[in-house]
Structures are given as structure tokens and as C-alpha cells.
């Protein structure tokens, strides 16, 4: 394992110190592990709080700022944050209009946010929770913990953040988040496994010519193993898989997020995106907006995920709204 770290134990704290130094426009409470905007919104505004294990940067800290999140709670690497963080964050950013928790659907995240929401309610805070569960690699059945939350998180945080900024109420913001999640589907492919610093070796072994299809963002293995194939075929399969679970027909519009998992060169992401765009065009699906880059990563995993969100006028308007965060900026 070769990593640019000091010790596996101090990764989160050390990274937060660097994040704080790089982003003076944000407030980083290192002991409590809470990232907030340095300036509170002027009037009452629904506060958006998210969080999750670290190792997915820029998610979530990179999305704190006007037009998106009010606070993020980074957990240890691949480990859900604890309720204390979420509570501290909620209290720090609550601004008279309630708090929305954006939670990726993982057992740990769900339970920790649940405990936080309980205590927050006891302390008189109004809290709504938006659960993100967009990963079609997982069957949503009694046989699983339900679909994982992955790329759609970026879309939920961006659009709900924009709506909150415009003064919408708590229920409205939460409902929008749920609507965006329901309109989103994702699927991921890995060329290499991620190495958690504390584990010291890759989460799974992958031969030189094989890929893991349907992986999650926590280094967990995927649906199955396949031979590596040309980007064209891989992209076609991923588009196919996502669409098989989507109710999109020719003429529909989507927002497409082609997301790198951490160690994928942007050059390769563009190669894949070219194929994705071509496959969608063949089916008459219009990509109204796209985003190509590293947004929801999995440490040093090479690979990509595709998220397709069915778009409409409201979503596009919110997607285009100004945002000023470390990882997403729009005038």
C-alpha cells in the first residue's frame, strides 16, 4: 500500500486540516468533524446537512457552500459518521426553517442519522431525512439492505440545495430531494479495488484482465467479475443496465453524471462519456446536462459510475442555479 498519509489512524484529521487550509470560505471544526459555511445565510433557510464515511471526496465536504449543503459530517474512511457529528452540524446551521438530512442508504449511515434525528427532535429541531438509494446493482428486496446511495447524492444535494436557497419550506425541500432520488439510477464498474488505509491492502483481488461489475463505493466487491472489454462495450452494458431499471423513453431528457471512482484519468472518463452519450443518443434520450469527473469516489479505486436522472424543467432550473462550493461552482 502506497499512500500519501501520515498514519492510517490520522488520515481523516490530517485531511481535514488540509481541507481547512485550502478552503478559508468554510469553517472546519476538526475535533467535532463538522464542515460548515463560514457565513450563515441571512434570513431563515432550510439547512441541508449530509455526511458519510470519508474516502469519497469531494463528497460531502466539497459540496458545502452557497447553493448546496450547509454542513457536512465526514466519518472515518468508509465508516458512517456518528450521531454527535450530525447533531452538532444540525445545531450549527439550523436557521429557523428546519434541517434536511441527506443520507446515503447504508445500514451504518441510516442508523447513525436515525439516532441523530431522534435526539434532534428531542431537542426541538425539525428534521426531515432524504434517503438516497440509486444503485441498481443491488436488488431492492427483503434479501438486501436495499439499494445503495451513490452518484444521485450529488444531484439531490445540488437541486435540494438550490431550492433551499430560494426559500422553499422544509417539506418542499425534502420532497424535492426524494423526487430527484426517485428519478435517478446508477451503476458502477471497477478496474481495481480500493485500499482502506487501516486495512493496508485492496478490498478484493482483481486479475490484470478482469473487472468487477456492479461495485459499491466502499471497496465492496460487485455483482460479478468479467473480462475487461473496450470502453465502448462496457459503456453500452452500463447504459443498458441503468436503463433497464429506468422508465425512460425516446424523447426524455436526463442529467448524466459520469463519475470517476478516484484513480481514473480524466482522459479515460471522457472516452467512456463519449460512448455513453452515443448510446443514449441512439435511444433518443437527450442529455440535457452532464457532469464528467470525480465527484463520488472510492479512495484509489479505478473505474467509473454512471448516474442518469430524468430531468424536467424544474430540475434543470435547479441544476443550473448558482452554486459556490469547493467541488462544484456555477455563476
Amino acid at each position, binding site marked *: 500500500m502506497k499512500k500519501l498519509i501520515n498514519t*492510517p489512524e490520522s488520515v481523516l484529521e490530517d485531511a481535514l486540516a488540509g481541507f481547512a487550509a485550502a478552503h478559508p470560505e468554510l469553517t472546519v471544526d476538526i475535533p467535532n468533524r463538522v464542515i460548515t459555511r463560514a457565513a450563515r445565510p441571512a434570513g431563515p433557510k432550510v439547512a441541508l446537512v449530509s455526511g458519510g*464515511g470519508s474516502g469519497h471526496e469531494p463528497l460531502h465536504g466539497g459540496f458545502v457552500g452557497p447553493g448546496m449543503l450547509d454542513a457536512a459530517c465526514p*466519518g*472515518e*474512511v*468508509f*465508516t*458512517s*459518521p*456518528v*450521531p*454527535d457529528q450530525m447533531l452538532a452540524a444540525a445545531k450549527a446551521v439550523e436557521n429557523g426553517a428546519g434541517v434536511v438530512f441527506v443520507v446515503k442508504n*447504508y*445500514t*451504518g449511515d441510516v*442508523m*447513525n442519522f*436515525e*439516532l441523530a434525528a431522534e435526539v434532534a427532535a428531542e431537542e426541538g429541531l425539525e428534521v426531515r431525512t432524504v434517503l438516497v438509494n440509486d444503485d441498481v*446493482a*443491488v*436488488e431492492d428486496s*427483503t*434479501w*438486501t*439492505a436495499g439499494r*445503495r446511495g451513490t452518484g444521485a447524492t450529488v444531484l439531490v444535494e445540488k437541486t435540494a440545495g438550490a431550492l433551499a436557497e430560494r426559500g422553499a419550506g422544509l417539506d418542499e425541500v425534502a420532497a424535492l430531494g426524494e423526487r430527484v432520488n426517485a428519478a435517478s439510477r446508477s451503476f458502477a464498474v471497477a478496474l481495481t479495488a480500493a485500499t*482502506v488505509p*487501516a*486495512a493496508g*491492502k485492496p*478490498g*478484493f483481488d482483481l486479475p490484470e484482465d478482469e473487472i468487477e461489475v456492479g461495485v*459499491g463505493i*466502499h*471497496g*465492496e*466487491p460487485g*455483482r460479478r467479475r468479467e473480462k475487461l472489454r473496450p470502453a465502448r462495450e462496457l459503456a453500452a452494458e452500463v447504459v443498458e443496465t441503468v436503463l433497464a431499471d429506468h422508465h425512460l423513453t425516446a424523447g426524455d431528457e436526463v442529467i448524466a453524471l459520469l463519475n470517476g471512482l478516484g484513480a481514473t484519468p480524466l482522459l479515460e472518463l471522457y472516452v467512456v462519456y463519449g460512448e455513453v452519450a452515443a448510446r443514449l443518443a441512439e435511444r433518443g434520450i437527450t442529455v440535457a446536462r452532464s457532469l464528467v469527473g470525480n465527484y463520488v469516489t472510492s479512495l484509489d479505486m479505478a473505474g467509473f459510475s454512471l448516474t442518469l436522472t430524468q430531468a424536467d424543467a424544474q430540475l434543470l432550473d435547479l441544476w443550473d442555479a448558482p452554486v459556490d462550493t469547493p467541488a462544484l461552482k456555477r455563476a
Partner: protein
Amino acid sequence: MDFDTPLFDTALAEAWIRSIAAAVEKEQDRLTELDSAIGDGDHGSNLRRGFDAALAALEGLQPTGPGAVLTRTGTTLISKVGGASGPLYGKAFRALGAALPEPAGPVALAEAMAAGLDAVRILGKAEPGDKTIVDAWTPAVAALRAAAAAGATLPEAAAAAADAAEQGARDTVPLRARKGRASYLGERSTGHQDPGATSTALLFRTLADVTGNR
């Protein structure tokens, strides 16, 4: 009840937490390895962080009884662990602490452990057979109850619970996970022992050790 038989008192509760912390340190890599196979490779470091903090939390504590030790441990686990195991073990220890009279014999301990199991099941919604903590904790509670009913001493009951928990953990190997991260693997989750069930077995084994060493 034999007066020489140890009861579950404050000192034993503290010794148990110390013993868990030592065992988790020793077994950290194995737990992480099990979690790498069907999870995300952090179960060892999660529990290490949690029980190190639990140990530290005992330092300044003037506990009012064994229940207070365990409640405090649960609160610390919730605050420090995160992940799935943090809230689950945290809630379990809090429930255990709340249910534990001072000092407790085998019967009371069995009921307190049952309360802990209930807390896990309420929060995590796992059934036996889902390949989780529940699969080690459930047979441990059953063994504790049976031993207590048969008039066993605390060391005897705890040893029976440890054996049952370990068997329960081993029995997770062929299971297909239906809760937690491992459930994403579907059929590929079979053939591996569940990390959480394994750490639960560790909890009961250390309990047997500290009661037996009294």
C-alpha cells in the same frame, strides 16, 4: 445461591470492558479481514476506536454500579464508532446497562443480555439467519437463560454463552447475508464468517474469561 460465586458487579463490568478492549486490539486484523471479504474492511478498526474510547471513558467515571459502566460504554460506542456496528453495539450496551441490577447473577444477566439483543433487533431489524450480530447474540442469550434456569454459576453460564456465541458465529459461514453491506454480495456472501457475529462471540468469550478469573 453459593456465596463464593462471583456476581456481575461494577468491578467485573469494568474488567469486562478492559478485556474486550484488549481482545479487540489483538483480533483487530482478523475482524478487518473478515470485513474485507464481505464488507468494507473496517470492522476491526471501528471496534478498536470504540473500545479504546470506552476504556478512556471509564478513567474518570465514578460508576454507581455495573449498569452505569455499560451504559457509559454504549454511549461512547455510539459517539465514537460510526458505521453499522457503532449504533448497534452502542444501543445494545445502553440497553444492557439499563436492564442490569446490581449486583447481578446469572438470571438477571440473561435478561439484561436479552434486552441488549432486543435493542440490536429493534434498530437493525435483522432476523436470526440474516448473517449479523444477531446470529451470535441470540444463541448466547438462549444458553445464558438455559444455564441460569439450570442453576449454573455466573462463570458457568458465561462460558456456555461464549460457546454458543462462537458456534453461532461459525454458523454464519454458509448463510447468505440479508442485512448490512454483505447483503450487496448476494450469493457471494456465503462461505465467509460474519465479522459482526465474530466480534459478538468475542464479547461473550471475554465475559466468560473475566467471570471465570474471579
